[in-house]
């Protein structure tokens, strides 16, 4: 950049700064002090679904002296890709929100500095997918499963499906709606579930049959759940006609929580034999300005305080053994005993190939 350009650029910036301040007055987000010294603020970068109670974040500040600044940027995939683009000069100290379907992409890009969080021994072994290097810390798990509309199946006096195999039965023809595996994370999870269940040789055949049985594919979870699924609040209003949808095991409790008055029974149920387990991780970003704060935050993410706050904020399950689930989950949620899993490196190697052949089979 030449000097003259630099001057012009600075002048523009100054002018914009003035305009901006004039418009915004004393905006509380302009904590410019936090950037320079950085010692008392720790920045957590995440996707749009991240959520934590105010009290819990306050507790962290009281405990450690660090204030958490949360930055959200798009869905899980977009947030991670932005992190990869800014590798080495990250926007924050800790990144939360990479799951097992994308883990290899993060690790292969060397996004994280290894750190063994305090209390990791309380975390279930099968969630610790990077146990020998500790580049990432597991924070939560969630299951992607087929949900069903209880009323529909009661009215028809039909048992809801329970397994992948059930979905192929003629009784469930034209009932299932799922998401595009290329653009939606529950869609991808469901596809991976079928890969786990039928193997690399069998899943294509399974989808051929599923297509013959009238599966409908829409682009995202919002459309599938709110517009197509007859069991959801949105779907009831939209007179939706698909009583089976690919969603989460935690969706039924959410249907109860956000209803007024709260029903005594969830309107939807979970086909527990169709679940794929998602594990979400957090890691200390390589090049973090506040490394000490970042480490404290990672410890905090698997502390009991945070883990017990998480279910009702993000509708996921804790990973630590000593966290108590809220009543809402124990009462209305489903227990998934044997979720399907696929190893992250196998996903990394084959994801594109699986999605591509799935697309040509099901979408086109």
């Amino acid at each position, binding site marked *: 950049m030449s000097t003259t*350009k630099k001057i012009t650029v600075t002048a523009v910036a100054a002018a914009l700064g003035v305009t901006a301040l004039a418009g915004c007055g004393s905006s509380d987000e302009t904590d410019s002090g936090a950037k320079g010294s950085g010692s008392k603020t720790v920045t957590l970068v995440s996707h749009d679904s991240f959520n934590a109670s105010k009290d819990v974040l306050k507790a962290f500040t009281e405990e450690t002296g660090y204030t958490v600044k949360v930055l959200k940027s798009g869905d899980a995939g977009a947030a991670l890709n932005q992190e990869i683009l*800014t590798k080495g000069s990250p926007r924050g100290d800790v990144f939360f929100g990479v799951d097992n379907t994308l883990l290899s992409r993060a690790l292969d890009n060397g996004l994280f500095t290894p750190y063994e969080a305090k209390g990791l021994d309380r975390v279930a072994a099968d969630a610790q997918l990077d146990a020998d290097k500790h580049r990432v810390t597991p924070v939560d798990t969630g299951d992607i499963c087929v949900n069903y509309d209880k009323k529909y199946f009661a009215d028809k006096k039909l048992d809801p499906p329970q397994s992948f195999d059930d979905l192929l039965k003629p009784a469930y023809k034209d009932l299932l709606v799922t998401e595009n595996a290329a*653009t939606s994370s529950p869609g991808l999870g469901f596809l991976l579930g079928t890969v786990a269940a039928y193997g690399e040789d069998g899943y294509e055949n399974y989808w051929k049959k599923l297509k013959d049985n009238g599966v409908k*594919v829409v682009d995202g979870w919002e459309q599938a759940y709110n517009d197509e699924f007859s069991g959801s*609040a949105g779907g009831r209003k*939209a007179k939706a*006609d698909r009583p089976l949808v690919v969603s989460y095991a935690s969706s039924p409790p959410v249907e109860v929580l956000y*209803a007024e008055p709260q029903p005594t029974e969830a309107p939807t149920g979970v086909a527990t034999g169709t679940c794929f387990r998602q594990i979400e991780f957090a890691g200390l970003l390589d090049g973090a300005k506040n490394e000490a704060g970042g480490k404290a935050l990672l410890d905090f993410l698997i502390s009991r305080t945070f883990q017990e706050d998480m279910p009702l*904020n993000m509708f996921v399950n804790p990973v630590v053994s000593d966290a108590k689930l809220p009543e809402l989950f124990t009462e209305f949620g489903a227990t998934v005993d044997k979720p399907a899993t696929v190893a992250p490196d196998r996903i990394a190697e084959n994801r594109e190939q699986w999605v591509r052949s799935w697309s040509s089979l099901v*979408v086109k």
Partner: protein
Amino acid sequence: MAVPVAFFALFFAYPVVAIVGRGLKDGGRWQFGRIGEVLSRPEIVDVLWFTTWQALASTALTLVLALPAAYVFARFAFPGKQLLRAVVTVPFVLPTVVVGTAFLALLGRGGFLDELWGVRLDTTVWAILLAHVFFNYAVVVRTVGGLWSQLDPRQEEAARVLGAGRFAAWRRVTLPALAPAVAAAALMVFLFTFTSFGVVQILGGPAYSTLEVEIYRQTAQLLDLPTAAVLTLVQFAAVGGILAVHARTVRRRETALKLVDPEQTARRPRGAGQWALLGGVLLTVLLLILLPLGVLVERSLDGPGGYGFAFYRALQSADASGSTFLVPPLEAVWNSLRYALVATLIALFVGGLAAAALTRRAGRLVRGFDALLMLPLGVSAVTVGFGFLITLDEPPFDLRTSWILVPLAQALVGVPFVVRTMLPVLRAVDGRLREAAAVLGASPLRAWREVDLPLVRRALLVAAGFAFAVSLGEFGATVFIARPDNPTLPVAVARLLGRSGELNYGQAMALSTILMLVCAVSLLLLERIRTDRSGEF
């Protein structure tokens, strides 16, 4: 001139070039061979083909449905005209997440057409085309109707007195005067539908994909930057071409036409034919625009205990039992207003200076710059957003985590509207007035304050209103920018729709309705201020 150029260089050109460069460079060498490689893939060819033909079809359909309305708005006087003009403009600034939901409700199962005739259009191209008409109806009505209302009808009458038939008179007199405006409107609609994102993603289902959707998928989901870069270049070339043609038609339009006060040209409809035309237009507006908007309002009121304001009340509280936000969702309204205010100020500042510079100078270079200012309307939000990330990472411009990035991105989209609104008015200011003031001893600043400002104040307000409305509805770029958690209205709506549960769904509808009202009110205020109707939007 220096300020707008620097603004665009820093916040648009540099980030876009950098992200494209990241995709096309390998070890410091440009790999232009990738362009051919990507463009020969069959799935990319499909995308290009679909993008082009759906944009052509959408433009044609919009013209067919909106041109009669342009005529009606220009030539007929009827009660509620101003309100109606504001209403048809509301869709233009609504976020597509909201509109997609409304259209599914109408065109999908159990929808209006399904109930009446058992016709379902969801996941067909028809849903996409109709939604595009919904969004762009106002572009045609305002651009063409604005000019039409100022054409002197006596010219056509004179031709008829001289013996020309009704059609011949229209074809020889009115059509040539109108043609550039129609072409300009058609090109704008083509531009907006060519770069369509949300509509295609939601209504098209996974089977249809436009260039813009594909760029998003390649960048945000797959991180396949080389492919995204090639597609961005293709879109860039197409948009550049459209804008070049657009700039030519706009210039042709600025050739002298005898314009009259619109108040004189509009009169009450006479005869069965004219009433039928008015009725037909009103029916189209009702079915195509009011009905989808009405669905949103209806759903926002349709609470568990019958109709009421339960969802609106819920917006005021951050529910203690766990909520999608740390703050009451209603606060998104204030966030949006604040961001939009800052974005408007930036857009006015940059756009105003650009318009002033464009008025004072002429020549090829300046005209080129005029077209360049429109480019952000046609470049994908994800490209700009990701470009910010890799360019604005060093002091004094480490803005990646700063809130200012959101209004900056919104201002990029607002500036073209400001320039297009201000330019015709500024060009009309007689330079001799300014010179006279200077001769009488006024300083340049005083001359500007006393001469220019009173003349352009209205245009300035109109431009501000558009920039404000566009910023309120902007979703694409905002969602890709890391924000401290103070979501804007469209982001909050999207987030509420991303959750199950009746309360979340209802609140999303209620927030959408509020967004709609805020837009409608600001547009209605504009209608009152607006006197010069020759602006393009």
